[in-house]
């Protein structure tokens, strides 16, 4: 393995942190579309976070081979796999609710109180 100043763990952790921060910022916006984008970014962050809880392993997918003894952790992968599919379903529901609200009122604010909109 080549030595370098940059470490994998740092890259993944910082990616999780940056995606979370961006997701949270967009989640706090006032219109439905950026909020949905924020939720999507948070979904990526959470999924990668859960996946990373199995630690990072390169070149050892959890597919059994006779000549291999070390595998990456399969359990977080299985959980994240269903999480990805479910999050699609949930995103679709949220988009539908947002769309329905916009079509019904011609307004795509997420807040229903005037004090939060300027």
């Amino acid at each position, binding site marked *: 393995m080549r*030595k370098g100043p*940059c*470490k*994998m*763990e*740092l*890259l*993944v*952790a910082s*990616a999780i*942190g*940056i995606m*979370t*921060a*961006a*997701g*949270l*910022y967009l989640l*706090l*916006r*006032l*219109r439905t579309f950026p*909020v949905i984008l924020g939720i*999507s*970014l948070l979904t*990526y*962050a959470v*999924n990668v976070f859960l*996946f*990373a809880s199995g630690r990072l*392993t390169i*070149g*050892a*997918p*959890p*597919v*059994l081979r006779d000549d291999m003894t070390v595998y*990456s*952790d*399969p*359990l977080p992968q*299985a959980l994240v*796999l*269903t999480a*990805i599919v*479910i*999050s*699609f*379903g949930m995103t*679709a*529901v949220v*988009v*539908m609710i947002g*769309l329905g609200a*916009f*079509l*019904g009122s011609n307004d795509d604010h997420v*807040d229903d*109180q005037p004090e939060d909109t*300027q």
Partner: protein
Amino acid sequence: MSLFILVALPFLGALLPGLMNSAGRSACAGVTFTVSLTAFIGLLTNLPSVLAGEVVTARVDWMPVLGLNFTLMLDGLGFFFALLILGIGLLIIAYGRNYLSREDNMGQFFTYLLLFQGAMVGIVLSDNVLLLLIFWELTSLSSFLLIGYWKHLPEGRQGARMALTVTGMGGLAMIGGMLILGQIVGSYDLSVILQNRELIQADPLYLPALILILLGCFTKSAQFPFHFWLPHAMAAPTPVSAYLHSATMVKAGIFLMARMWPVLSGTPEWFVIVTTAGLVTMCIGAVIALFKHDLKALLAFSTVSHLGLITMLLGTGTAFGAMAAMFHILNHATFKAALFMSAGIIDHEAHTRDIRRLGGLRTLMPVTFVIATLAALSMAGIPLLNGFLSKEMMLEEANHTVLFNVPWLVPVLATVGSVFSAAYCFRLIGHTFFGPVRDDYPAKPHDPPAGLWMPPAILVVLVVVIGVAPFLAEPFVKLVTASVLGGEAEVPKAYFKIWHGLVPALYMSIIATVGGLILLMVFKPALRIWDGAPRPEAKVIFEAIVEAAATLAQKLILPLHNGAFSRYAAIGSVAIIGAGFHAWSTGQVGPATRTAQAADPVAIAGWGMLVAATVGLVFLHRNRLLSLILIGIVGLMVSIGFVFFSAPDLAMTQFTVEVVTIILLLLALNFLPKTTPVESSVLRRVRDVAVAVAGGVATFGIAYHFLLRDAVTTPISEFHLANSYKGGGGTNVVNVILVDFRGFDTYGEIIVLGIAALLIYALTQSLLGGPVRARLLNRKPDQPRAGDMHPMMMVVLTRVIMPVVMMVGFYIFLRGHNEPGGGFIAGLIVSIGVVMQYMASGFNWASARLHYPYHGVIGAGVLVAGLTGIGSWFVNKPFLTSDFTYVRIPPFEKFELATAALFDVGVFLAVVGAVMLSLESFSRLARRAHEPETEHPMDIDPSRDVEDAKGAV
């Protein structure tokens, strides 16, 4: 009959009345009656063992870890109560058939009644306190439905709410008490708890447990100061009042006191609390009852009073008291249910229950007169009727009870209570049936058909038979008493006799009867004094308390929950970050145990793209189309990251989900504004940045920390890796986990996914059905439309590619068990293939060629997965146990057949159905907004021009 069936029968039967509703009222009542009768006979089949003194048990371990087991037991006490519940239930069903009018929904009524019946039977047969609590709450809920059955009456709704609030709060307290008991004993099984009297009574938590359990009992059995809900529950139809509020549900609290008698009673605390509450309730109830003009209200307060009497008897803690209590439960159930039904008959025939408007019914309703008079005289304690016997026993017991070191207190109060009790019974008879016949009844009263008077008549026959020949009831009551005492005390030798000689109880009885007659004579002046006296109105106090609680809750909630989503999101985020910070600053972190892996330039480049896209998204999110491209890049880089870190299944899933998500967002963006305006102030944005950065730093910190450390304990993944091939028959461990090890989770997840898709469909339907439809139809597109909406190149390409996509999907599915792939991914790939047809050739063309509705596909998927799971029951294995074998059909190589693959088919179908239903719903909205599409796949089609040209020629 097995106890399980006995408890399950009413619940299962509750499904029938609703189904039979359209078959007519008699069929509806008939089926309910049959269900109850079956349970009743089933109960009687257990009679020989109960008589032999055995305890019939049935046990299934439900959640052994929590101590929650489905254990049932049938002893004398349980048998006695079950007999009352089912026996009187039969009479009530027959009575209810004739009582309810044509406007009432009978199916609903009997469904609620059977639910209630099942819950009651469950309470009295439970051998596990947690199970008992579940049934206990079920009785509260079903009685709520029954009290509020006449939804159009505000009194009904208010009464139901009050009953639910009071009994529900009591139930909550009782849960606490039962959990304490279970903790003391170390088991939640009643049979174990009942063996540990010394242990429980010596425990410092005995008193809290006792108080909490008694709160539950007192609220349920309407003991002072919680008695006020019962009269308001009288807004229910009379069969409900007769069944729940005289014979069964209000006795549940008493049942529980009797059940717990061996371990809870006998202490000074028990004696003082229970006896005092009973005595006070008995007197207050009797006094109020005398001055009530509504027949049912009078009977309700009289029930309160009698429940107090029974509670007091249990409170004395003596074996004789317990026996008198059991006997009085039997007697009270017979005469009080008969009286309620008589009151219902009078209400039904005379159209009023107000005693002041009645009188002289003796000659008009002779049958009802005989029934009601016998029952009321029994309640007053007149000899040769059963009420006399148990009332004598009560007075006898009261005579020996010394409360607060005042020897005369209990006997005097018991006598006072009896005086008023006799007085309201005499008033009930005198003012309703005697006196002159009036000419101003709201309706002309006459005796009802036999269907209405027969049920109370049967009960009155029991009243007289037990009253004349008490020795008939004696062995049974003693058997019940023995199981109440549970070996803690000997069953008293005393015989049940009408004549005990000139004992003090007899004098007290005579005082009560004579006093009652005198009170009736001076009723008018007494009523004037009563009406003039100030007294607290329970309903007003109750409503004030509820109002205050609601105001407090609103004051707490409204500032936090004011309708602004961004506010909740901010509060939620800050709270979570705060909790995380607390954990971080108080917890300990061990040293790093893993060495960090060096990153190569490709990984750094990928990271750079991901970060650039993420940061770009934040700055460019106002341009919504651009932000879709950026989020696509993020998703793509995440997929590549999964490949890089040895998760090929995840990469394939993420990649395909990315495609459908982008299509979905594009479909939505079609309608939404294309840009986001700048709205929030700089200050607000600074605040949001602060929250976001804090959250980002927190997740970064925790992720970085655990990435450099090994798990504290060995991950269970080792088990999965070791058993995937041996036990699951697959080498792709991720897929084996999904369809085998954790198949039940996956099963739940495909159901959730299906529900999400159905929800989207339902929302679309309601949008298209509402005013939005017109807006969509009149909508002017805010962007220029493409001149060629279905270009020929794309149509041809997608159609050529379709079989290839299907084959890829099929291949990915088949290899899923051993190589990366499987039902989820195959489902997504096939969905993309189908979506491409919609996009290229148009909605009409594509949907005309699809023969299966997507709801059906989702349903089929869940069904296939479920049936695969159920299949393992046939070989006596738990749900979703998988099996596999290898077969060889000559020209092919050896291949594997696994039930898990069948389960994966279910997953595949559910995913295809859910994804397609969601996207189809979105595009149906879009279709409304366009001018109608043509049936043709391409807008410009050279072959069609040729045909048109031919047609023109």
